[in-house]
C-alpha cells in the first residue's frame, strides 16, 4: 500500500502569503499588525541576520577567502541560492537568454541586495506618451507617493532633496559623505557633463526615529552580507521578524508551494505545498492568497494553477501571465586613478550601498535610443578578497615606478610586492542600470517537458534584447569612457563593441526582473487591477515585482514595498466592507 498522503490542515487563515521578500514581507507586516491571522510560506530556511550574517568576518575566515565558488556574490554574501539551484532547473528557448537568480531563505534576495532605493517618477508610471513604446500603468506617481513616504518612514532611507522631476525626493536620513575616489568621479563627471548626486539607500546612517528594534549603521560597508544590528533593509529583519512578534503571523520555512487551490466558484481557497525537509505534501486553507514569490515564481505558480474555472492558469484569462518580462539593462567599466597611487590609508568602508550616483540626465529627443539609465559608482580601499591584485601584469607597466621610469609589466619579488601596495585603493568602477522596454515577446511559460525535483513544472524563458537596449549600452560605454578620461583614470576593463552588444549584460543578470503578472484597467490586457488584485479571482493578490507594467531605470525594491503596502491597506479596507 502506498504511503503517499496529502495532509490537509483544518485551520482557515485570514491570508496565506507565498514568499517572504520585500512584497510578501510587507504584506505580512501590514496584515499581521492589523490583527489578521496570516500564514507565510517560504521556500528556503529561516534566516535572521542578527545570527546568520557573515558580517565583520575577515577574508581568512573563509577557506576560499571570499571567492564566489558557492555563493555567486562571494562566500560572505547573504543570499542562499544563485543562478542555478540544485534540483530546481529552468530552461530557455533556443536562441534566447535569461539568467534567473533565486534566493531561497526568509527575506529572499533582500538579504543581500544593494539597498539602492529609488522611487519611480511620474514619467515612469505614465510613459506611453513619451515614445509610444510602452503601456501606462493604471496608477500615477501621485497614487503611490503616500506609500513611498510611509515606506521611507517605516524602513529608513538616506538621500538628499534635489527637486528633480522624474527622480522624486523622499523623506531622507543624511547620506554618507563621498569617499576620495568619489570626489574624483564627481569632478570628472561634471567635466563630462554628467550630473552626480548623493546616493539613495535604505541604510540607517542615523537612528531611525521611533524604532527601537534596529541599530544605526556602523559603516562596515557590508550590507551584502546582511546586517546583525538591522542597520539596513532586509525583509527578514525589518518586516517578517517584527511581524512575528505580533503573534498573528506564522512562518513555514522550507515550504515549496506547488499551486494556488481554487473552489467551484473560482475563488482561491488556499495553496498546496511540499515540505522540502521530508517531502511531505500539504494543503492549507486561507480566505485569500497573496503571492510575493518573485516575478518569475508568481507567474509560475499562476500558470501551474490550472482548474476547470481557470483552464489557462489562474488569473490568466487575458493570457498575459508570464508576458512582458523585463530586467534592467546593465553595462559597466572599470579602471584606476594613477594620481591615487601610494595613497594614505584609513578606514573608508562607508555604507554598503552607493554613496553617489547619476540619475538619468539627458533628453531622448537628441538620442538614438529610448529611455535612460542611471549610473552607480564604486572604488576605494576595499577589504581584500579572493582575486585581489589579479592581473597586476596588466597594470604595473602602465605607470612609472617609484624611480619615475616605466616598469616592465609583470614581475616578481619585493618590487612586485610594492606594486600591490602602490595600486591599492586606486580602482574606480561604474555601472549603468537602464530601462528595458517591456515586450509581449519577452516572456516565461511553463516548460511542457521539464519538472523540478518536487515534480513541479518549471519555467521556460524567452528573452532577447533589441537594438533599443543595445544602443543604450553603447551610450553607457561612451559615457563611462568620457568620465574616466575627464577624471584622469586609466581604463582597464575590456573595450566593448558591437560584437559584445557593448557589454550589455544578459537578460536577468541585473536581477531586476519584473512585469510577468501585469496590472491594468482592461481585464483583456492585464491580469491584475490597479490594486494588484486578480481580475479573474478577487481574493488573489500579487505583491512582488510581477505587477509592474513598465519599470523605469530605478531599482525595483522601493516600488515593490510601496505597492505591497498599498495593496495590503486596500485588503484591510475591503475586509471592512466585507467584500474580501
Amino acid at each position, binding site marked *: 500500500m502506498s504511503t503517499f498522503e496529502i495532509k490537509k490542515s483544518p485551520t482557515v487563515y485570514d491570508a496565506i502569503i507565498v514568499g517572504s521578500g520585500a512584497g510578501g514581507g510587507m504584506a505580512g507586516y501590514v496584515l499581521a499588525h492589523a490583527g489578521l491571522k496570516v500564514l507565510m510560506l517560504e521556500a528556503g530556511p529561516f534566516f535572521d541576520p542578527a*545570527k546568520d550574517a557573515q558580517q565583520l568576518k575577515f577574508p581568512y575566515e573563509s*577557506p576560499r577567502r571570499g*571567492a564566489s565558488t558557492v555563493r555567486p556574490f562571494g562566500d560572505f554574501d547573504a543570499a542562499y541560492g544563485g543562478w542555478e539551484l540544485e534540483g530546481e532547473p529552468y530552461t530557455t528557448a533556443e536562441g534566447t537568454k535569461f539568467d534567473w537568480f533565486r534566493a531561497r531563505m526568509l527575506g529572499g534576495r533582500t538579504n543581500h541586495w544593494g539597498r539602492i532605493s529609488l522611487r519611480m517618477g511620474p514619467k515612469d508610471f505614465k510613459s506611453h506618451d513619451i515614445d509610444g513604446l510602452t503601456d501606462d500603468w493604471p496608477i500615477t506617481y501621485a497614487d503611490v507617493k503616500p506609500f513611498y513616504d510611509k515606506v521611507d518612514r517605516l524602513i529608513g532611507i538616506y538621500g538628499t532633496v534635489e527637486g528633480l522631476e522624474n527622480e522624486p525626493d523622499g523623506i531622507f536620513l543624511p547620506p554618507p559623505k563621498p569617499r576620495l575616489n568619489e570626489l574624483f568621479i564627481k569632478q570628472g563627471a561634471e567635466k563630462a557633463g554628467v550630473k552626480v548626486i548623493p546616493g539613495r539607500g535604505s541604510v540607517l546612517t542615523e537612528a531611525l526615529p521611533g524604532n527601537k528594534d534596529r541599530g544605526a549603521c556602523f*559603516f*562596515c560597508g557590508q550590507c551584502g552580507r546582511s546586517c546583525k544590528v538591522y542597520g539596513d533593509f532586509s525583509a527578514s529583519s525589518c518586516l517578517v521578524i517584527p511581524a512575528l512578534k505580533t503573534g498573528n503571523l506564522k512562518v513555514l520555512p522550507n515550504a515549496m508551494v506547488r499551486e494556488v487551490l481554487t473552489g467551484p466558484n473560482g475563488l482561491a481557497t488556499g495553496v498546496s505545498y511540499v515540505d522540502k525537509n521530508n517531502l511531505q505534501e500539504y494543503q492549507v486553507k486561507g480566505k485569500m492568497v497573496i503571492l510575493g514569490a518573485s516575478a518569475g515564481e508568481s507567474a509560475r505558480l499562476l500558470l501551474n494553477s490550472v482548474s476547470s474555472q481557470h483552464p489557462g492558469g489562474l488569473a490568466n484569462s487575458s493570457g498575459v501571465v508570464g508576458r512582458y518580462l523585463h530586467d534592467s539593462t546593465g553595462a559597466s567599466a572599470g579602471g584606476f586613478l594613477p594620481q591615487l597611487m601610494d*595613497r594614505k590609508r584609513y578606514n573608508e568602508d562607508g555604507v554598503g550601498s552607493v554613496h553617489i550616483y547619476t540619475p538619468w540626465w539627458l533628453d531622448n529627443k537628441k538620442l538614438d535610443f529610448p529611455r535612460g539609465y542611471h549610473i552607480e559608482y564604486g572604488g576605494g580601499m576595499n577589504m581584500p578578497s579572493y582575486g585581489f591584485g589579479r592581473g597586476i601584469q596588466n597594470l604595473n607597466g602602465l605607470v612609472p615606478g617609484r624611480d619615475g621610469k616605466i616598469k616592465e609589466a609583470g614581475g616578481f619579488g*619585493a618590487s612586485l*610586492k610594492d606594486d600591490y601596495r602602490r595600486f591599492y585603493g586606486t580602482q574606480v568602477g561604474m555601472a549603468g542600470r537602464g530601462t528595458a522596454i517591456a515586450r509581449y515577446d519577452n516572456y516565461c511559460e511553463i516548460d511542457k517537458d521539464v519538472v523540478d525535483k518536487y515534480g513541479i513544472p518549471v519555467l521556460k524563458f524567452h528573452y532577447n534584447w533589441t537594438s533599443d537596449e543595445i544602443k543604450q549600452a553603447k551610450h553607457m560605454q561612451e559615457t563611462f569612457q568620457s568620465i574616466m578620461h575627464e577624471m584622469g583614470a586609466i581604463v582597464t576593463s575590456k573595450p566593448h563593441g558591437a560584437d559584445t552588444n557593448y557589454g550589455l549584460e544578459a537578460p536577468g543578470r541585473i536581477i531586476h526582473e519584473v512585469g510577468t503578472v501585469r496590472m491594468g484597467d482592461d481585464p483583456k490586457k492585464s491580469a491584475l487591477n490597479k490594486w494588484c488584485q486578480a481580475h479573474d479571482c478577487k481574493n488573489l493578490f500579487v505583491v512582488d515585482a510581477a505587477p509592474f507594467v513598465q519599470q523605469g531605470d530605478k531599482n525595483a525594491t522601493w516600488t515593490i514595498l510601496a505597492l505591497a503596502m498599498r495593496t495590503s491597506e486596500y485588503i484591510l479596507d475591503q475586509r471592512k466592507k466585507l467584500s474580501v
Partner: protein
Amino acid sequence: MKRRESLKAIGLTALSTGLLLDACKSEPAQQTEQAAVIEAPTETAGRQAFELERDKKLHAETFFTPHEMATITVLADIIIPKDEHSGSASDAKVPAFIEFIVKDIPEHQLPMRGGLRWLDLQCADRYGHAFVDCPAPQQLEMVTAIAYPAKAKPELKQGVSFFNRMRDLTASGFFTSKIGIADIGYAGNAPNRWTGVPADVLKQYGMENVTV
C-alpha cells in the same frame, strides 16, 4: 612548518628525478602539513548544510603531491618574499591556500599541474634538475624568463600563462591573510562612524571644495 624546514623535509625526497618518479607512481598522495593549516570554520551559523559538508570534504582531500607543493612554496616566496614590511608568502601560508583553492575551483587544477610540470621540464632541459632542485640563481633566471609577458620569448608563452596564474593565486592568498591585510594597510571591517575624507587627504589632492 617554517619555510626552511618544509623545504628541507621535501628536499630529502625530491631529487632531480623525483618529478619523473612522481609521474609514474600512483600511490595515494600524502596529506601535506600546509594543507592542514587552514582549519574548517568553527562558526557554522549562516552556513548551509551543503556548504559545510563541501568544505569538510575539500579539507579532507589532497590535490598536490609533496613535490608540487615544494615547487609552489618556492615560487610563492619568489613572487612575494619577506621584506622590511612583512613576511613572505609561505609565512602567510599561501601554499596551503593554493592547495585548497584548486580543490574549490577545479579549473585551476589542470593549468597548475601542467604548468608545474612544464616548469620542471624546462629546468631539466636547461639545468638538468627539477625547479626546486636548482640553485637559487637558476630558479630566478627561469622565473625571470616567464615573469614579464611583454618581453618573454614566444616559445615560453605557456610558462607566462602559468606564472600569471601563480602570481594571481599568490597575491590572493597573501593579501587576504592577516599578514597581508596588515601589509596592504586595509583599515576597515571595524565599527566606526564615517564622516568623510580626512582633512589632510582632501588637502593633499586639492579636493577641499569638491562637494556632491
